[in-house]
């Protein structure tokens, strides 16, 4: 859907990236200063690449070779800036309405009331931006970009300045944009949960280059992330079909070849295919009878690899689950030694249902 291949030099900084996003969310991920905002600005048309081509659907937005450069206002690409950039002379309501003006009524897919309500900004409508708090500004900026019902939405760390609760309210809304309105999104975030939940494609940038690209499962899998030292960002992505809903307990059971996964959420319908994100730090291994603990989700697998930090306390255990998916578990080296774990052993993986973040469970996005 979006195909980016650009080069840009800015003094010492050199950007040279190529990636393609599908119709869903493409996440740009990487350390501070790696070039995420620059990519976003290139796609929006606020920056011209030295060389390259950007294609959105069947529209060529930029092609330096053929001298094509569609100006920002003809791209129909919404942008949520890292720092809100509201119009200081317009009230919040007018800020929100600004883009609607240029949206043909037929394209006005996003309803103002829904946006205002989800973002919790109805009490701010009559105010000027200078009187808003940091998070309030950012929410208005999100609303402003959404309301133009763009063909592509660019979001540069949109939730960074919001509290957890607010994030948890806004995320499903972003999902709805992706799914119901089929608006593709290019999403910059440092938060693994957000990235995993939303993104079908993750692009990891490093110093202006693409370090890794692929599905969330691959790019954020521990082996690739281990060197980054962030074990909390390491996840496995399992997929399965919704097997049963338990409205009484508010949970769903996902059938997986290696066992069943209980997630704290009522899925839309039985039979639907879903992805579940499991943090490697949330997986314990055991050899024990079912029902001995409060842990509902037990998955059978075989140890495929054990990677130990040489001097750190951790070991990463990769399990091949029945059915072929791979599940990662972070343990202490102490535990690996105490349990005498070794490659080839059969073990049970335990995953607490409560540790599965709803943010990390999603219907498989249309690719």
């Amino acid at each position: 859907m979006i195909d980016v291949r650009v080069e840009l030099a800015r003094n010492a900084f050199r950007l040279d990236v190529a990636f393609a996003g599908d119709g869903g969310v493409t996440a740009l991920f990487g350390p501070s200063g790696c070039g995420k905002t620059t990519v976003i600005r290139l796609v929006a048309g606020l920056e011209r690449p030295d060389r390259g081509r950007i294609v959105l659907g069947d529209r060529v937005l930029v092609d330096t070779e053929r001298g094509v450069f569609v100006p920002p206002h003809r791209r129909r690409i919404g942008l949520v800036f890292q720092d809100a950039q509201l119009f200081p002379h317009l009230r919040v309501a007018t800020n929100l309405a600004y883009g609607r003006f240029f949206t043909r009524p037929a394209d006005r897919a996003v309803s103002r009331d829904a946006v205002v309500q989800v973002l919790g900004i109805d009490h701010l409508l009559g105010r000027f931006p200078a009187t808003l708090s940091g998070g309030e500004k950012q929410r208005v900026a999100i609303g402003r970009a959404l309301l133009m019902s763009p063909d592509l939405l660019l979001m540069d760390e949109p939730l960074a300045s919001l509290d957890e609760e607010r994030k948890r309210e806004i995320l499903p809304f972003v999902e709805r944009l992706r799914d119901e309105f089929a608006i593709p999104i290019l999403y910059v975030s440092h938060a693994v949960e957000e990235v995993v939940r939303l993104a079908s494609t993750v692009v990891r940038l490093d110093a202006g280059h693409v370090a890794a690209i692929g599905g969330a499962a691959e790019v954020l899998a521990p082996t690739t992330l281990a060197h980054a030292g962030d074990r909390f960002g390491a996840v496995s992505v399992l997929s399965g079909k919704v097997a049963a809903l338990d409205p009484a307990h508010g949970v769903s059971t996902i059938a997986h070849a290696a066992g069943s996964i209980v997630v704290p959420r009522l899925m839309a319908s039985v039979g639907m295919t879903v992805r579940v994100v499991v943090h490697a730090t949330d997986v314990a291994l055991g050899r024990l009878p079912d029902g001995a603990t409060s842990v509902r989700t037990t998955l059978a697998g075989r140890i495929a690899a054990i990677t130990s930090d040489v001097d750190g306390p951790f070991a990463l255990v990769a399990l091949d689950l029945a059915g072929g998916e791979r599940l990662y578990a972070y343990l202490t080296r102490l535990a690996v030694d105490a349990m005498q774990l070794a490659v080839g052993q059969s073990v049970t993986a335990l995953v607490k249902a409560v540790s599965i973040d709803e943010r990390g469970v999603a219907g498989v996005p249309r690719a």
Partner: protein
Amino acid sequence: MFSPEEWTAIGLSLKVGTIATLGALPLAVAVAWLLARGRFPGKALIDGLVHLPLVLPPVVTGYALLILFGRRGVFGAALAEHFGIVFSFRWTGAALAAGVMGFPLMVRAIRLSFEAIDDRIEQAAATLGAPPLWVFATVSLPLAARGIVAGAVLAFAKALGEFGATITFVSNIPGQTQTIPAAIYSYTQTPGGDLGALKLSLVAAAIAFAALILSELSVRRAGRDGGRR
């Protein structure tokens, strides 16, 4: 308190100042925008030309206007023939002179305000689908309100005081081109005219003061946003 002729001069000055300011404003905004944001060859030249009425003695500007826009002037003749616009020895000419003399002041103030706008706000408008002219009208222009108002006040004040170029261009005809400063000049040429000159000077100062206060109020209104970006 004032003679009929003085009242006429006061009224004329108000008219000339207002028309000159309003008439020059759109062009000043356009030129200020070009100078603030444009990158084109000859930009320095335009900048220089804009400053010319400030640099030249008013008499010279007046002569230049006379030669260009007089009845026999290059533009004057064409304008009169095709559009019926006549400047020479009319109040319109006084307004033209005042507009030209105030132009550099206007452009500078407006340009400074344009330059102070963070262009990412304009970029935000563009990403929302607004074409450049619309961005200009709905974002750049209101954000430059302070400079536009300041420029207008400067030009209006200058129009109240402008004398050299006006009297040289359109002479000093009571009821037609005799504005307050021209009337003051007449007083200074008259024995014992000091009091009259002082009186009219006070009038000019009072008018300018009123314009100033009005402008501050209008900017403060525009600044309900807390006044900053």
